[in-house]
Protein backbone atom coordinates (compact mmCIF):
# COMPACT_ATOMS: atom_id res chain seq x y z
CA UNK A 1 0.00 0.00 0.00
CA UNK A 2 2.72 2.43 0.98
CA UNK A 3 4.52 1.60 -2.23
CA UNK A 4 1.44 2.44 -4.28
CA UNK A 5 1.06 5.66 -2.34
CA UNK A 6 4.64 6.57 -3.11
CA UNK A 7 3.95 5.97 -6.81
CA UNK A 8 0.93 8.22 -6.77
CA UNK A 9 2.83 10.88 -4.84
CA UNK A 10 5.68 10.80 -7.35
CA UNK A 11 3.28 10.81 -10.30
CA UNK A 12 1.42 13.73 -8.78
CA UNK A 13 4.68 15.63 -8.26
CA UNK A 14 5.63 15.00 -11.87
CA UNK A 15 2.24 16.22 -13.08
CA UNK A 16 2.33 19.27 -10.80
CA UNK A 17 5.80 20.04 -12.08
CA UNK A 18 4.52 19.81 -15.64
CA UNK A 19 1.44 21.89 -14.96
CA UNK A 20 3.42 24.59 -13.21
CA UNK A 21 5.89 24.78 -16.06
CA UNK A 22 3.39 24.56 -18.91
CA UNK A 23 1.82 27.75 -17.57
CA UNK A 24 4.66 29.47 -19.31
CA UNK A 25 4.13 29.14 -23.06
CA UNK A 26 7.85 29.39 -23.78
CA UNK A 27 8.56 26.19 -21.91
CA UNK A 28 6.23 24.08 -24.05
CA UNK A 29 8.94 23.20 -26.48
CA UNK A 30 11.42 22.50 -23.68
CA UNK A 31 9.16 20.21 -21.69
CA UNK A 32 8.07 16.89 -23.11
CA UNK A 33 5.85 14.22 -21.64
CA UNK A 34 5.70 10.63 -22.61
CA UNK A 35 4.73 7.33 -21.08
CA UNK A 36 4.19 3.63 -21.46
CA UNK A 37 1.71 1.09 -20.23
CA UNK A 38 1.34 -2.67 -20.25
CA UNK A 39 -1.79 -4.65 -19.56
CA UNK A 40 -0.83 -8.30 -19.30
CA UNK A 41 -3.12 -11.23 -18.62
CA UNK A 42 -1.80 -14.68 -17.78
CA UNK A 43 -2.99 -18.16 -16.91
CA UNK A 44 -0.94 -21.20 -15.89
CA UNK A 45 -2.31 -24.61 -16.82
CA UNK A 46 -1.03 -26.26 -13.61
CA UNK A 47 -2.64 -25.90 -10.20
CA UNK A 48 0.46 -27.14 -8.37
CA UNK A 49 2.74 -24.37 -9.52
CA UNK A 50 3.20 -20.67 -10.11
CA UNK A 51 5.25 -19.12 -12.91
CA UNK A 52 6.17 -15.42 -13.06
CA UNK A 53 3.49 -14.98 -10.37
CA UNK A 54 0.71 -16.56 -12.46
CA UNK A 55 -1.27 -19.45 -11.03
CA UNK A 56 -4.12 -21.61 -12.23
CA UNK A 57 -6.51 -18.66 -12.58
CA UNK A 58 -6.67 -15.70 -14.95
CA UNK A 59 -4.61 -12.89 -13.49
CA UNK A 60 -4.00 -9.28 -14.58
CA UNK A 61 -1.95 -8.05 -11.63
CA UNK A 62 1.50 -9.48 -12.20
CA UNK A 63 3.10 -7.49 -15.00
CA UNK A 64 0.64 -4.70 -15.77
CA UNK A 65 2.13 -1.26 -15.19
CA UNK A 66 2.02 2.41 -16.05
CA UNK A 67 5.05 4.65 -16.53
CA UNK A 68 5.29 8.41 -16.99
CA UNK A 69 8.31 10.37 -18.11
CA UNK A 70 9.03 14.09 -18.16
CA UNK A 71 12.01 15.57 -20.00
CA UNK A 72 12.94 19.18 -19.49
CA UNK A 73 15.57 20.85 -21.64
CA UNK A 74 17.56 23.30 -19.51
CA UNK A 75 19.87 24.43 -22.31
CA UNK A 76 21.37 23.05 -25.51
CA UNK A 77 23.68 20.78 -23.55
CA UNK A 78 21.74 20.04 -20.35
CA UNK A 79 18.41 18.35 -19.69
CA UNK A 80 16.57 16.82 -16.76
CA UNK A 81 14.54 13.58 -16.89
CA UNK A 82 12.23 11.95 -14.37
CA UNK A 83 10.36 8.66 -14.76
CA UNK A 84 7.87 7.10 -12.34
CA UNK A 85 6.46 3.62 -12.75
CA UNK A 86 3.48 2.14 -10.93
CA UNK A 87 3.38 -1.65 -10.79
CA UNK A 88 0.26 -3.70 -10.10
CA UNK A 89 2.56 -6.31 -8.58
CA UNK A 90 3.13 -5.76 -4.83
CA UNK A 91 6.59 -7.23 -5.07
CA UNK A 92 7.81 -4.46 -7.33
CA UNK A 93 8.93 -1.15 -5.91
CA UNK A 94 6.60 1.44 -7.45
CA UNK A 95 7.77 5.03 -7.62
CA UNK A 96 10.66 6.98 -9.01
CA UNK A 97 12.80 4.78 -11.27
CA UNK A 98 14.82 7.43 -13.06
CA UNK A 99 15.72 11.00 -12.08
CA UNK A 100 18.82 12.35 -13.72
CA UNK A 101 20.58 15.31 -15.25
CA UNK A 102 21.99 14.77 -18.75
CA UNK A 103 24.95 16.62 -20.17
CA UNK A 104 25.28 16.04 -23.89
CA UNK A 105 27.58 18.51 -25.66
CA UNK A 106 27.34 16.57 -28.96
CA UNK A 107 25.91 13.41 -30.52
CA UNK A 108 28.86 11.32 -29.41
CA UNK A 109 29.09 12.03 -25.69
CA UNK A 110 26.45 11.77 -22.97
CA UNK A 111 26.90 11.98 -19.21
CA UNK A 112 24.03 11.28 -16.84
CA UNK A 113 23.98 12.00 -13.11
CA UNK A 114 21.33 10.77 -10.70
CA UNK A 115 19.08 7.75 -10.22
CA UNK A 116 19.13 5.38 -13.16
CA UNK A 117 18.40 1.78 -14.07
CA UNK A 118 21.49 -0.41 -14.07
CA UNK A 119 22.33 -1.58 -17.60
CA UNK A 120 23.68 -5.00 -16.52
CA UNK A 121 22.16 -6.88 -19.45
CA UNK A 122 20.81 -5.73 -22.83
CA UNK A 123 17.25 -5.15 -21.59
CA UNK A 124 17.91 -4.57 -17.87
CA UNK A 125 17.12 -0.88 -18.14
CA UNK A 126 14.09 -1.28 -20.42
CA UNK A 127 12.26 -4.28 -18.93
CA UNK A 128 9.20 -2.14 -18.19
CA UNK A 129 8.88 -0.97 -21.80
CA UNK A 130 7.22 -4.07 -23.21
CA UNK A 131 6.63 -2.19 -26.47
CA UNK A 132 10.42 -2.15 -27.00
CA UNK A 133 10.89 -5.92 -27.34
CA UNK A 134 9.18 -8.70 -29.28
CA UNK A 135 8.52 -11.13 -26.39
CA UNK A 136 5.53 -10.67 -24.14
CA UNK A 137 7.52 -11.78 -21.10
CA UNK A 138 11.31 -11.47 -21.36
CA UNK A 139 12.97 -14.90 -21.13
CA UNK A 140 12.77 -15.32 -17.35
CA UNK A 141 15.66 -17.75 -17.30
CA UNK A 142 17.88 -14.71 -17.90
CA UNK A 143 15.84 -11.74 -16.75
CA UNK A 144 14.31 -13.05 -13.52
CA UNK A 145 17.16 -12.48 -11.17
CA UNK A 146 16.43 -10.60 -8.00
CA UNK A 147 19.04 -7.92 -8.48
CA UNK A 148 18.98 -4.35 -7.40
CA UNK A 149 17.33 -2.55 -10.33
CA UNK A 150 18.53 1.04 -9.93
CA UNK A 151 21.60 2.92 -8.79
CA UNK A 152 22.46 6.43 -7.76
CA UNK A 153 25.52 7.65 -9.58
CA UNK A 154 27.00 8.63 -12.92
CA UNK A 155 26.81 7.03 -16.35
CA UNK A 156 28.85 8.13 -19.34
CA UNK A 157 28.40 6.99 -22.90
CA UNK A 158 30.62 7.64 -25.91
CA UNK A 159 29.87 6.61 -29.46
CA UNK A 160 31.92 6.76 -32.65
CA UNK A 161 31.89 5.33 -36.15
CA UNK A 162 34.65 3.76 -38.21
CA UNK A 163 33.53 3.05 -41.77
CA UNK A 164 30.40 0.94 -41.42
CA UNK A 165 31.03 0.13 -37.75
CA UNK A 166 29.33 1.96 -34.90
CA UNK A 167 30.97 1.50 -31.54
CA UNK A 168 29.53 2.59 -28.22
CA UNK A 169 31.21 2.53 -24.83
CA UNK A 170 29.25 2.97 -21.67
CA UNK A 171 30.57 3.15 -18.13
CA UNK A 172 28.77 3.70 -14.83
CA UNK A 173 29.62 4.06 -11.19
CA UNK A 174 27.43 4.45 -8.15
CA UNK A 175 25.64 2.82 -5.23
CA UNK A 176 22.37 1.14 -4.25
CA UNK A 177 20.75 1.13 -0.83
CA UNK A 178 17.26 -0.35 -0.75
CA UNK A 179 15.32 -3.60 -0.59
CA UNK A 180 15.49 -6.44 -3.06
CA UNK A 181 12.47 -8.67 -3.38
CA UNK A 182 12.69 -12.41 -3.36
CA UNK A 183 9.47 -14.38 -3.28
CA UNK A 184 10.05 -15.48 0.31
CA UNK A 185 11.34 -12.21 1.76
CA UNK A 186 12.36 -8.59 1.23
CA UNK A 187 16.03 -8.11 1.98
CA UNK A 188 17.74 -4.87 2.88
CA UNK A 189 20.69 -4.57 0.57
CA UNK A 190 23.54 -2.13 0.31
CA UNK A 191 25.82 -2.07 -2.71
CA UNK A 192 28.82 0.20 -2.80
CA UNK A 193 31.52 0.54 -5.43
CA UNK A 194 29.06 -0.51 -8.09
CA UNK A 195 30.60 0.00 -11.50
CA UNK A 196 30.44 -1.46 -14.95
CA UNK A 197 31.48 -1.07 -18.56
CA UNK A 198 29.52 -2.05 -21.68
CA UNK A 199 30.57 -2.09 -25.29
CA UNK A 200 28.10 -2.28 -28.13
CA UNK A 201 29.37 -2.82 -31.64
CA UNK A 202 27.02 -2.49 -34.59
CA UNK A 203 27.94 -3.63 -38.09
CA UNK A 204 25.25 -3.61 -40.77
CA UNK A 205 22.44 -5.77 -39.37
CA UNK A 206 24.47 -7.20 -36.50
CA UNK A 207 24.79 -5.87 -32.97
CA UNK A 208 27.06 -7.40 -30.37
CA UNK A 209 27.10 -6.23 -26.77
CA UNK A 210 29.52 -7.28 -24.08
CA UNK A 211 29.52 -6.04 -20.53
CA UNK A 212 31.14 -6.42 -17.17
CA UNK A 213 29.81 -5.11 -13.88
CA UNK A 214 30.66 -5.51 -10.25
CA UNK A 215 29.55 -4.36 -6.83
CA UNK A 216 30.46 -4.81 -3.21
CA UNK A 217 27.31 -6.26 -1.72
CA UNK A 218 26.13 -6.18 1.87
CA UNK A 219 22.92 -8.12 2.40
CA UNK A 220 21.13 -7.88 5.71
CA UNK A 221 20.89 -11.44 7.02
CA UNK A 222 21.12 -10.97 10.80
CA UNK A 223 20.19 -14.51 11.82
CA UNK A 224 22.68 -16.05 9.43
CA UNK A 225 25.42 -13.69 10.63
CA UNK A 226 24.76 -14.62 14.29
CA UNK A 227 24.81 -18.29 13.45
CA UNK A 228 28.04 -17.85 11.54
CA UNK A 229 29.63 -16.20 14.59
CA UNK A 230 28.48 -19.11 16.74
CA UNK A 231 30.07 -21.61 14.34
CA UNK A 232 33.30 -19.62 14.45
CA UNK A 233 33.35 -19.77 18.26
CA UNK A 234 33.13 -23.54 18.02
CA UNK A 235 35.99 -23.55 15.53
CA UNK A 236 34.05 -24.60 12.42
CA UNK A 237 35.61 -21.83 10.38
CA UNK A 238 34.98 -23.27 6.89
CA UNK A 239 31.26 -23.48 7.54
CA UNK A 240 31.30 -20.09 9.26
CA UNK A 241 33.08 -18.55 6.27
CA UNK A 242 30.56 -19.98 3.85
CA UNK A 243 27.68 -18.26 5.66
CA UNK A 244 28.75 -14.93 4.30
CA UNK A 245 26.37 -12.47 2.65
CA UNK A 246 28.98 -9.82 1.96
CA UNK A 247 31.48 -9.48 -0.81
CA UNK A 248 32.04 -8.92 -4.47
CA UNK A 249 29.41 -9.84 -7.03
CA UNK A 250 30.56 -9.89 -10.67
CA UNK A 251 28.39 -9.80 -13.79
CA UNK A 252 29.41 -10.84 -17.27
CA UNK A 253 27.17 -10.54 -20.31
CA UNK A 254 27.44 -11.19 -24.03
CA UNK A 255 24.64 -10.74 -26.53
CA UNK A 256 24.52 -11.11 -30.30
CA UNK A 257 21.59 -9.87 -32.34
CA UNK A 258 20.77 -9.85 -36.02
CA UNK A 259 17.78 -8.24 -37.66
CA UNK A 260 16.56 -7.28 -41.09
CA UNK A 261 13.19 -6.59 -42.70
CA UNK A 262 12.14 -10.23 -42.51
CA UNK A 263 13.98 -11.97 -39.67
CA UNK A 264 15.61 -11.48 -36.32
CA UNK A 265 17.80 -13.55 -34.05
CA UNK A 266 18.51 -12.42 -30.50
CA UNK A 267 20.69 -14.24 -28.05
CA UNK A 268 22.24 -13.42 -24.72
CA UNK A 269 24.52 -15.23 -22.29
CA UNK A 270 25.01 -14.05 -18.74
CA UNK A 271 27.22 -15.16 -15.91
CA UNK A 272 27.19 -13.97 -12.33
CA UNK A 273 29.82 -14.90 -9.77
CA UNK A 274 29.50 -14.19 -6.08
CA UNK A 275 32.30 -14.15 -3.55
CA UNK A 276 30.20 -14.81 -0.44
CA UNK A 277 28.81 -18.34 0.01
CA UNK A 278 25.26 -17.04 0.19
CA UNK A 279 25.53 -15.48 -3.27
CA UNK A 280 24.51 -17.82 -6.03
CA UNK A 281 26.53 -18.31 -9.19
CA UNK A 282 24.47 -17.97 -12.33
CA UNK A 283 24.94 -19.25 -15.91
CA UNK A 284 21.96 -18.37 -18.06
CA UNK A 285 21.14 -17.81 -21.71
CA UNK A 286 18.38 -17.39 -24.25
CA UNK A 287 18.19 -17.61 -27.99
CA UNK A 288 15.20 -16.35 -29.94
CA UNK A 289 14.33 -16.09 -33.60
CA UNK A 290 11.46 -14.35 -35.30
CA UNK A 291 9.87 -13.71 -38.66
CA UNK A 292 8.20 -10.42 -39.61
CA UNK A 293 5.20 -10.21 -41.89
CA UNK A 294 4.29 -6.63 -41.13
CA UNK A 295 2.34 -5.77 -39.01
CA UNK A 296 2.86 -9.21 -37.42
CA UNK A 297 5.91 -10.90 -35.92
CA UNK A 298 6.04 -14.55 -34.90
CA UNK A 299 8.86 -15.79 -32.72
CA UNK A 300 10.22 -18.81 -30.92
CA UNK A 301 12.58 -18.76 -28.01
CA UNK A 302 14.53 -21.14 -25.80
CA UNK A 303 16.15 -20.16 -22.54
CA UNK A 304 17.96 -21.94 -19.76
CA UNK A 305 18.70 -20.99 -16.19
CA UNK A 306 21.32 -22.53 -13.94
CA UNK A 307 21.56 -20.82 -10.55
CA UNK A 308 23.68 -22.72 -8.09
CA UNK A 309 25.45 -22.38 -4.77
CA UNK A 310 28.77 -23.92 -3.79
CA UNK A 311 27.28 -25.63 -0.78
CA UNK A 312 30.02 -26.66 1.67
CA UNK A 313 29.35 -29.89 3.53
CA UNK A 314 28.95 -29.71 7.28
CA UNK A 315 32.18 -30.13 9.24
CA UNK A 316 30.25 -30.41 12.48
CA UNK A 317 30.48 -33.92 14.01
CA UNK A 318 27.13 -35.53 14.51
CA UNK A 319 26.15 -37.72 17.51
CA UNK A 320 28.67 -36.46 20.08
CA UNK A 321 26.76 -33.93 22.13
CA UNK A 322 23.20 -32.61 21.81
CA UNK A 323 24.59 -29.06 21.38
CA UNK A 324 26.67 -30.08 18.38
CA UNK A 325 23.73 -31.99 16.92
CA UNK A 326 21.58 -28.85 17.08
CA UNK A 327 24.38 -26.87 15.47
CA UNK A 328 24.76 -29.44 12.68
CA UNK A 329 21.03 -29.62 12.06
CA UNK A 330 20.79 -25.82 11.96
CA UNK A 331 23.66 -25.63 9.48
CA UNK A 332 21.93 -28.15 7.22
CA UNK A 333 18.75 -26.12 7.59
CA UNK A 334 20.54 -22.97 6.43
CA UNK A 335 22.02 -24.83 3.44
CA UNK A 336 18.53 -25.97 2.53
CA UNK A 337 17.31 -22.37 2.69
CA UNK A 338 19.68 -21.48 -0.18
CA UNK A 339 18.76 -24.05 -2.80
CA UNK A 340 19.75 -24.12 -6.48
CA UNK A 341 17.24 -23.01 -9.09
CA UNK A 342 17.23 -24.51 -12.57
CA UNK A 343 14.70 -24.29 -15.36
CA UNK A 344 14.19 -24.00 -19.10
CA UNK A 345 11.61 -21.95 -20.96
CA UNK A 346 10.38 -22.52 -24.51
CA UNK A 347 8.24 -19.83 -26.07
CA UNK A 348 6.01 -19.39 -29.07
CA UNK A 349 4.53 -15.95 -29.56
CA UNK A 350 2.91 -13.42 -31.84
CA UNK A 351 3.21 -9.64 -31.83
CA UNK A 352 0.76 -7.54 -33.79
CA UNK A 353 1.69 -3.89 -34.27
CA UNK A 354 -1.83 -2.66 -34.53
CA UNK A 355 -0.85 1.01 -34.51
CA UNK A 356 2.49 2.84 -34.52
CA UNK A 357 2.35 3.12 -30.71
CA UNK A 358 0.17 0.13 -29.77
CA UNK A 359 1.02 -3.54 -30.02
CA UNK A 360 -0.92 -6.66 -29.04
CA UNK A 361 0.90 -9.82 -28.04
CA UNK A 362 0.03 -13.44 -27.40
CA UNK A 363 2.54 -15.88 -25.99
CA UNK A 364 2.78 -19.46 -24.79
CA UNK A 365 5.66 -20.49 -22.55
CA UNK A 366 6.42 -24.09 -21.74
CA UNK A 367 8.47 -24.16 -18.55
CA UNK A 368 10.38 -27.17 -17.30
CA UNK A 369 11.95 -27.29 -13.84
CA UNK A 370 12.49 -30.83 -12.77
CA UNK A 371 15.61 -30.88 -10.65
CA UNK A 372 15.92 -27.78 -8.55
CA UNK A 373 13.27 -25.22 -7.66
CA UNK A 374 14.15 -22.69 -4.99
CA UNK A 375 10.70 -21.03 -4.91
CA UNK A 376 12.49 -17.67 -4.70
CA UNK A 377 12.30 -17.00 -8.43
CA UNK A 378 9.92 -17.33 -11.37
CA UNK A 379 9.05 -21.01 -10.84
CA UNK A 380 7.22 -21.98 -7.64
CA UNK A 381 6.27 -25.45 -6.55
CA UNK A 382 3.03 -25.18 -4.59
CA UNK A 383 3.27 -28.91 -3.73
CA UNK A 384 3.41 -31.99 -5.98
CA UNK A 385 4.46 -29.98 -9.03
CA UNK A 386 5.57 -32.39 -11.74
CA UNK A 387 8.04 -29.82 -13.11
CA UNK A 388 6.19 -28.95 -16.32
CA UNK A 389 3.64 -26.24 -17.01
CA UNK A 390 2.43 -23.96 -19.77
CA UNK A 391 1.83 -20.24 -19.27
CA UNK A 392 -0.66 -18.59 -21.64
CA UNK A 393 -0.50 -14.81 -21.91
CA UNK A 394 -2.19 -11.96 -23.74
CA UNK A 395 -0.98 -8.40 -23.58
CA UNK A 396 -1.39 -4.84 -24.75
CA UNK A 397 1.73 -2.65 -25.02
CA UNK A 398 1.28 1.06 -25.38
CA UNK A 399 3.63 4.02 -25.59
CA UNK A 400 2.48 7.62 -25.72
Amino acid at each position, binding site marked *: MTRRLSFFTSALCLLMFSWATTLNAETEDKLQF*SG*FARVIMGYLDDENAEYVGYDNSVNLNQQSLL*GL*QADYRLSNDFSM*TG*QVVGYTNDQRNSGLQ*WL*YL*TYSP*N*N*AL*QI*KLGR*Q*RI*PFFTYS*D*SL*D*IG*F*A*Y*PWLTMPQQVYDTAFFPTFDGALA*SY*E*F*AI*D*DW*VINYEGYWGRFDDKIYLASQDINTKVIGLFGVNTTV*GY*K*NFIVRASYGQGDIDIEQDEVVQFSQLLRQFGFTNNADWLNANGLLQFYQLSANY*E*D*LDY*FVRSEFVKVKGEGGLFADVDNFYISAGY*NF*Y*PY*TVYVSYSKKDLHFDHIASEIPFGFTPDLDVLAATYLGVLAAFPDDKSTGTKLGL*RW*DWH*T*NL*ALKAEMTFVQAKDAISNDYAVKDLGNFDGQAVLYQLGVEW*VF
Partner: protein
Amino acid sequence: MKKYLTLLFLCIISFAKLEAAEAIIVVANTSDKSIQLSRQQVRNLFMGGVIPYNLDAIALPPENQTRVLFNTKVVGLTEARIQSYWAQMRFTGRKRAPKEVDNESSVLEYLENNIDAIGYLPGDISIPDNLTVVYTIR
Protein backbone atom coordinates in the same frame (compact mmCIF):
# COMPACT_ATOMS: atom_id res chain seq x y z
CA MET B 1 6.23 -0.35 -87.03
CA LYS B 2 6.16 3.24 -85.89
CA LYS B 3 3.25 2.39 -83.60
CA TYR B 4 5.30 -0.35 -81.94
CA LEU B 5 8.27 1.94 -81.54
CA THR B 6 6.07 4.55 -79.88
CA LEU B 7 4.67 1.87 -77.58
CA LEU B 8 8.15 0.67 -76.70
CA PHE B 9 9.24 4.24 -76.07
CA LEU B 10 6.23 4.80 -73.80
CA CYS B 11 7.03 1.62 -71.94
CA ILE B 12 10.63 2.70 -71.34
CA ILE B 13 9.47 6.14 -70.22
CA SER B 14 6.97 4.69 -67.76
CA PHE B 15 9.55 2.28 -66.32
CA ALA B 16 12.01 5.12 -65.96
CA LYS B 17 9.34 7.14 -64.24
CA LEU B 18 8.48 4.24 -61.99
CA GLU B 19 12.11 3.89 -61.03
CA ALA B 20 12.42 7.60 -60.34
CA ALA B 21 9.34 7.44 -58.13
CA GLU B 22 10.83 4.53 -56.18
CA ALA B 23 14.22 6.18 -55.75
CA ILE B 24 15.07 7.94 -52.52
CA ILE B 25 17.46 10.84 -52.18
CA VAL B 26 18.94 12.16 -48.97
CA VAL B 27 19.32 15.92 -49.03
CA ALA B 28 21.26 18.22 -46.70
CA ASN B 29 21.64 21.92 -46.16
CA THR B 30 25.40 21.97 -45.87
CA SER B 31 28.13 24.40 -46.90
CA ASP B 32 30.39 21.47 -47.85
CA LYS B 33 28.90 20.45 -51.20
CA SER B 34 31.29 17.52 -51.56
CA ILE B 35 29.75 15.40 -48.78
CA GLN B 36 28.69 11.97 -49.96
CA LEU B 37 27.33 9.46 -47.42
CA SER B 38 27.25 5.68 -47.56
CA ARG B 39 24.02 3.76 -46.98
CA GLN B 40 25.28 2.70 -43.55
CA GLN B 41 26.06 6.28 -42.58
CA VAL B 42 22.57 7.39 -43.62
CA ARG B 43 21.10 4.51 -41.63
CA ASN B 44 23.15 5.44 -38.55
CA LEU B 45 22.21 9.08 -38.83
CA PHE B 46 18.47 8.40 -38.97
CA MET B 47 18.70 5.82 -36.16
CA GLY B 48 20.37 8.27 -33.80
CA GLY B 49 23.93 7.03 -34.36
CA VAL B 50 27.08 8.99 -34.90
CA ILE B 51 28.61 9.84 -38.29
CA PRO B 52 31.67 12.02 -39.04
CA TYR B 53 29.52 15.03 -39.99
CA ASN B 54 27.44 17.19 -37.70
CA LEU B 55 23.99 16.88 -39.31
CA ASP B 56 20.50 16.96 -37.77
CA ALA B 57 18.10 14.44 -39.26
CA ILE B 58 14.43 15.13 -39.83
CA ALA B 59 11.89 12.47 -40.75
CA LEU B 60 8.46 12.05 -42.29
CA PRO B 61 5.48 10.59 -40.37
CA PRO B 62 5.13 6.77 -40.15
CA GLU B 63 2.28 6.46 -42.66
CA ASN B 64 4.12 8.48 -45.34
CA GLN B 65 5.01 6.46 -48.47
CA THR B 66 8.49 8.02 -48.81
CA ARG B 67 9.22 6.99 -45.22
CA VAL B 68 8.05 3.44 -45.94
CA LEU B 69 10.46 3.31 -48.92
CA PHE B 70 13.26 4.79 -46.82
CA ASN B 71 12.67 2.20 -44.06
CA THR B 72 12.72 -0.60 -46.59
CA LYS B 73 15.64 0.49 -48.74
CA VAL B 74 17.94 2.27 -46.33
CA VAL B 75 17.16 1.34 -42.72
CA GLY B 76 16.22 -2.25 -43.50
CA LEU B 77 13.71 -2.54 -40.66
CA THR B 78 9.92 -2.52 -40.47
CA GLU B 79 8.13 0.53 -39.11
CA ALA B 80 7.10 -1.55 -36.07
CA ARG B 81 10.73 -2.33 -35.21
CA ILE B 82 11.75 1.29 -35.70
CA GLN B 83 8.99 2.42 -33.33
CA SER B 84 9.98 -0.12 -30.68
CA TYR B 85 13.65 0.87 -31.03
CA TRP B 86 12.78 4.52 -30.38
CA ALA B 87 10.63 3.56 -27.38
CA GLN B 88 13.60 1.75 -25.87
CA MET B 89 15.97 4.67 -26.60
CA ARG B 90 13.58 7.29 -25.24
CA PHE B 91 12.69 5.60 -21.96
CA THR B 92 16.29 4.69 -21.21
CA GLY B 93 17.36 8.28 -21.96
CA ARG B 94 19.79 7.33 -24.73
CA LYS B 95 18.58 8.85 -27.97
CA ARG B 96 15.73 10.82 -29.45
CA ALA B 97 13.91 10.04 -32.68
CA PRO B 98 14.43 12.65 -35.44
CA LYS B 99 11.95 15.50 -35.49
CA GLU B 100 9.02 14.70 -37.78
CA VAL B 101 7.53 17.09 -40.31
CA ASP B 102 4.19 16.63 -42.11
CA ASN B 103 5.10 15.96 -45.74
CA GLU B 104 7.75 16.21 -48.47
CA SER B 105 7.23 19.92 -49.15
CA SER B 106 7.62 20.65 -45.41
CA VAL B 107 10.89 18.69 -45.49
CA LEU B 108 12.16 20.91 -48.31
CA GLU B 109 11.06 24.04 -46.49
CA TYR B 110 12.67 22.88 -43.24
CA LEU B 111 15.93 21.99 -45.00
CA GLU B 112 16.12 25.38 -46.69
CA ASN B 113 15.64 27.19 -43.39
CA ASN B 114 17.95 25.11 -41.18
CA ILE B 115 21.68 24.83 -41.73
CA ASP B 116 23.03 21.27 -41.20
CA ALA B 117 19.53 19.78 -41.48
CA ILE B 118 19.23 16.54 -43.46
CA GLY B 119 16.15 14.69 -44.69
CA TYR B 120 15.04 12.08 -47.19
CA LEU B 121 12.82 12.77 -50.21
CA PRO B 122 11.46 10.95 -53.27
CA GLY B 123 13.96 10.75 -56.13
CA ASP B 124 11.83 12.72 -58.61
CA ILE B 125 11.52 15.87 -56.52
CA SER B 126 13.37 18.98 -57.73
CA ILE B 127 15.96 20.26 -55.32
CA PRO B 128 16.88 23.93 -54.94
CA ASP B 129 20.51 24.87 -55.62
CA ASN B 130 21.41 25.62 -52.02
CA LEU B 131 20.67 22.02 -50.97
CA THR B 132 22.95 19.05 -51.64
CA VAL B 133 22.02 15.47 -52.50
CA VAL B 134 24.37 13.43 -50.30
CA TYR B 135 22.99 9.97 -51.04
CA THR B 136 20.80 8.31 -53.67
CA ILE B 137 19.30 4.82 -53.70
CA ARG B 138 17.26 3.41 -56.57
